[in-house]
C-alpha cells in the first residue's frame, strides 16, 4: 500500500473544489488562480492542467469566464464562480468536514495500538 497514491487520488478528486473555493472569494485570472493553488499545495500536477479543469467547471455551469480589458495588451480572461458553483462548493464543504473529521479520528495514532 502506498500513501502517496491515495493522496494523489484524493488531490485529483478535490482539485475542482479547491478551485471553486478560491473563486468563491473573488474572480481571478488564470495565472493568479494557478499560483495560489500551487503555493498552497492544492495542485500537484503541472500548472497547465488547471485550464482544462476550469473548462470542465465551465461546462458544468459552476464557473463563468469573461474577458475584461486590461492596461497592458489584450483583454484578460477572468474566471468567476456562479450561484450553482457556490451551492456545489457548500455541499462539498459539508461533506468534506464530516469526512476529514472521520478520517482524522480513525487514523488517530494515540488510540491505535498495533
Amino acid at each position, binding site marked *: 500500500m502506498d500513501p502517496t497514491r491515495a493522496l494523489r487520488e484524493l488531490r485529483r478528486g478535490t482539485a475542482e473544489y479547491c478551485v471553486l473555493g478560491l473563486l468563491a472569494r473573488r474572480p481571478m485570472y*488564470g*495565472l493568479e488562480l494557478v499560483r495560489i493553488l500551487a503555493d498552497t499545495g492544492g495542485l500537484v500536477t*503541472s*500548472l*497547465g492542467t488547471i485550464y482544462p479543469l476550469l473548462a470542465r467547471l465551465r461546462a458544468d455551469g459552476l464557473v463563468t*469566464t469573461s474577458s475584461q480589458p486590461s492596461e*497592458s*495588451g489584450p483583454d*484578460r*480572461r477572468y474566471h468567476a464562480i456562479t450561484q450553482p458553483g457556490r451551492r456545489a462548493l457548500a455541499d462539498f464543504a459539508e461533506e468534506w468536514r464530516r469526512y476529514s473529521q472521520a478520517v482524522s479520528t480513525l487514523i488517530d495514532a494515540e488510540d491505535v495500538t498495533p
Partner: protein
Amino acid sequence: MTDHLIDDERVEDYLRRLRAATADLPATARAELLADVSQHIRDARAAEADLADVLAELGSPEEIARAAGGRTRSRRTYDRVTIALLALGGLLPGGLGWIAGVVMLWRGAQWTVRDKLLGTFLLPFGPAGATNLVWLNTGEGVCEQVGRDFSCRRESGSLLLVVMALYALIGAATCVYLAGRARRRPA
C-alpha cells in the same frame, strides 16, 4: 502590433505543439484552452518570470491536452485502423480483414455495445463485402454458339447491382457513423 511578451520562438513552438495535441477537441474548447495558456504565459512573462521556468511549470503540451480529454495519437490510430478494416477488410480472402476489424471494434471502449452490435451484424463483411454478393446473380443466362461449342455467361441482373450498391452504401454509412462515435468519446 506584436505582443513582445509572447513573441518568442520557444513560445510559438510550445503553442504550436499545444495546438497539434488538441486537434481532436471541439473548436471552442480548443480555442479557449489556447487562449488561457497564451494568457498565462503572457502574464507570467510580464511578472518577469524566466520563460524556461514558465514553460516547465506549465507542463508539456501533451500533458495539458491529455487533461483536456482529447484522444491520444495512439487512440486515433486505433480508431482509424478499426474503421479501415471494417470498411475494406471484406476484400481480403475469407473476409479476415473485416473479422480483425470486428475484434478491434469489440475491444474498444470508445464504442457502446449498441455501436458494436451495429458494426458487426448490420452488414457482415462491411461495404467491401458487397463483392461477396455476386453469388446472388439472378441475371439471365445467355448462351452463344461458337463453332460447335456453346459459350454461356450470365448477365448481371440489375437487381444484383442495386443490392450491391445499397449494401456498399449502408456499409459505408455504418463506418462513418462508427468513426463519429469514436471521435466523441475521449481516450
